[in-house]
């Protein structure tokens, strides 16, 4: 059974499901309780579960994230809200130095079942300090799992999986899409990590993305179909670490062409990783160099026209695909 829900409702559903199922689950974050969450993800939960389980925190990202790690080490399962991932730099010492590594440097004596979640990425004119896509940053560190669901169904299903995972999970939400609707499986529809999703089947070129950029690729695929008669396959990676190499490689073996799309900066990004995996594992199948579409190498600007120019566009994606097909750009 499925129901139509927003991304926001889907996330809340998953957390409610786990709050009800497991008493060791607690939520923490700035203004998630009385205020209902600045993005209303946790609206109503404070009244339902009370202040011991829905914990409003001061503006102390390093402190409360570290405390959540400590709770997790003693068997609690905190879900920490970063009001936005931009504020996680203050907590990144705790996330990287403690959460990611303590299991290893304790010789396996402890585990950290912790979820850190919040909106990631830009697009709403928040300018330099409030616009980041951090999947490559956190994806770099062994010990962390990093996921980035884009459909409401995956938002719920991957949140269920995240809460049950015995490791720290960096849960990067498509903040710009909180209000978008989709079919969401009822009850326990956990979606496993490390499995990409074919968002659209095609035969001529593979467009690879995650998060908000998946929607961009879907639109670019439509344009390619209409304007050039090109059949593009779209892969939604969903999970950055672990990474589903198989689905990616199989698709490229079929299409022989690939475009990797990301909102973040080009250098040292996820798209580079995608390109490297393809050349390592599907080199003989390639008919064109793998293209990367990324943000301009600048801190995010405020002005609307500059911001639009700084991020990948549908046109940039379609043109990159055209380059792999050696057809004229538009």
């Amino acid at each position: 059974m499925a129901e139509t829900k927003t991304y926001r409702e889907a996330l809340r559903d998953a957390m409610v499901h786990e709050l009800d199922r497991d008493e060791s689950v607690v939520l923490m974050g700035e203004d998630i309780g009385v205020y209902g969450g600045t993005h209303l993800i946790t609206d109503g939960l404070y009244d339902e579960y009370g202040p011991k389980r829905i914990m409003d925190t001061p503006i102390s990202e390093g402190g409360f994230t570290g405390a959540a790690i400590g709770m997790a080490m003693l068997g609690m399962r905190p879900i920490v809200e970063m009001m936005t991932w931009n504020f996680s730099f203050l907590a990144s010492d705790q996330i990287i130095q403690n959460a990611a590594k303590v299991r290893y440097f304790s010789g396996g004596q402890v585990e950290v079942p912790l979820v850190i979640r919040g909106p990631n990425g830009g697009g709403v004119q928040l300018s330099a300090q409030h616009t980041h896509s951090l999947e490559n940053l956190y994806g770099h560190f062994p010990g962390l799992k990093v996921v980035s669901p884009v459909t409401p169904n995956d938002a719920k299903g991957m949140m269920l999986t995240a809460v049950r995972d015995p490791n720290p999970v960096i849960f990067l939400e498509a903040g710009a899409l909180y209000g978008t609707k989709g079919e969401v499986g009822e009850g326990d529809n956990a979606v496993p990590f490390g499995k990409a999703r074919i968002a659209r089947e095609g035969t001529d070129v593979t467009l690879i993305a995650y998060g908000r950029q998946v929607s961009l690729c879907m639109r670019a695929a439509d344009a390619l179909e209409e304007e050039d008669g090109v059949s593009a396959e779209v892969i939604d990676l969903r999970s950055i670490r672990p990474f589903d190499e198989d689905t990616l490689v199989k698709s490229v073996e079929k299409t022989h062409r690939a475009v990797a799309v990301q909102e973040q900066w080009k250098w040292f990004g996820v798209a580079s990783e995608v390109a490297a995996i393809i050349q390592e594992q599907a080199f003989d199948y390639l008919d064109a160099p793998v293209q990367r579409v990324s943000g301009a190498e600048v801190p995010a600007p405020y002005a609307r026209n500059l911001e639009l120019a700084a991020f990948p566009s549908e046109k940039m994606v379609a043109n990159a695909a055209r380059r792999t097909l050696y057809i004229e750009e538009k």
Partner: protein
Amino acid sequence: MPAENGNSENGDVGREETRGEGTVATSGNGLVDVYREMVMVRTFEEACQKGFRSGKIGGYLHVYIGEEAVASGFLSAFKEGDRVITAYRDHPHALILGAEPKNVMAELYGKGTGLVKGKGGSMHLFDVENGLMGGYGIVGGHIPLGVGMAYAQRYQGSDHITQLYLGDGSMSNGAFHEAANLAGLWGKEGLCPCLFIVENNQYGMGTSVERTTAMTDLAAKFDAYGIENEKVDGMDVEAVMEVAQRAADHVRETGKPYAVEALTYRTASHGAADFMEKYRTKDEVDEWRQRDPIGLLEKKLLENGELDEEKLEEIKGETKELIDDAVKFADESDQPDISELYTDVYAGEDEYLGEK
């Protein structure tokens, strides 16, 4: 040590000499000018709210409505060469220091004529020439910068000081505690002329001070770092001006940091997009509104005869015209040229390292 907290009768402590060359009329008779300045800030902020609602202003917008006496009062002690640093609620600081309202508004409208070329928006106003070292968006993140600036001022042999504005909510952040500790330490050697100004507007977003710390005496937190401190009624601009002058003189003379907690209230919502206000009651807001800093000053000036209804209307009319012009300018200005996307990333010849 600064003298005890008392209101000077006419409050306009050395205003003419101390004010930097602002474009906002500050010449003439003290308190009336302060009044005009506060009305200008309020009118500007109301125009911003309107611009946000009509979609002309994007991103985050944080206005200063209800808190005008704090920036206005403290900046009355600003001397040319001093520095000011604050968070994202930064419009009044820019305006009072002398940025043209039209350039500030153009920034919020995302135009090339904006104070920072349309690159930063509301949260990142800079006007280095007039002393404003910026507005910053990460809560607490600017506090260490202000302490470093104060050190630099002494290191470079000047008698300038840094006015460092911070919110009540930011004091829960580690950066505050680390920076305050440094300031106290360097201040022992007379090397940190930093005036901490806590804009205690009672809330950090939807969380009251009581729900954020067990030690709600924010001024007293500075005791832990050896920084002298006091509180002031942040709704009474004369009281603020008195403390500001005394504290600034002290910091300037000794090179030691000093902290003032200004008790004020944000009568507007936290951000322009935040209408819910589930965290406070209408009664509470109304109660604070009774002590609106502009209303209080207006009443006083009418009572003591420095203003009459006619003059009042004149000031309001002139201010409205100034801000209307700013809005018009912002609206009519062009968006930044796309080539601006690639400038200012690096200093030096190669401003952009990447492909276009």
